[in-house]
């Protein structure tokens, strides 16, 4: 029972953590994952979230085995 977590770009630097694996908990949502990996740090309003490489809302349900990612606004191109 695990969830893979990624903090990308500036978020990984800010929280000194780019990847984590946490235990899955029934009823877990994306915002709960953030709280666990950042020890309850405030999430910036413009933070983007994804589950299994697809954009999602912060209240999206997280399933066992999912990969959850948090990242700042994108700046490619």
């Amino acid at each position: 029972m695990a969830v893979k977590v990624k903090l990308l770009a500036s978020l990984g630097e800010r929280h000194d953590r780019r990847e984590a694996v946490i235990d899955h908990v029934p009823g877990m949502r994306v915002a709960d994952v953030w709280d666990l990996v950042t020890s309850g740090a405030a999430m910036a309003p413009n933070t983007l979230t994804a589950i299994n490489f697809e954009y999602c809302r912060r209240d999206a349900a997280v399933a066992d085995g999912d990969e959850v990612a948090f990242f700042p606004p994108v700046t490619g191109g």
Partner: protein
Amino acid sequence: MKVEVRDQPFDPWRELADYQAAGGPRTGSGAAAVFVGTMRDCNDGERVRAMRLEHYAGMTERHLERIAAEARARWPIDDALILHRIGDLKPGDPIVLVAAWSAHRAAAFDAARFLIEDLKSRAPFWKKEQLGDGSRWVACNTAG
């Protein structure tokens, strides 16, 4: 149709020539619209010496494949090409190449514009600039 994220420098004009020579777009394509994005040596009033481009491996490629397919569904284009750099860049280095081919120019222009605008607003890439006295993450893309 081709989508690629590359960690080595590329020449966009050679890429276009090679792609066309390899038979990507059909000979019925009377129009090709091309966008090339290049690293600048200044941003927000500061000299930028170098830049590192990061991406979210897996999600980025998936997103680019999706918008290329969406472009084909929305406009009568014959082909599309997206090539984007990651890694360490210096001023003048190409960052992105977007091209769309169609029978006539309207669809090629519209599809190419859609591809680059969606890429810049939704594809998970991030730029970190090296300045003369430190570094900074680019906070957001310009509107156009």
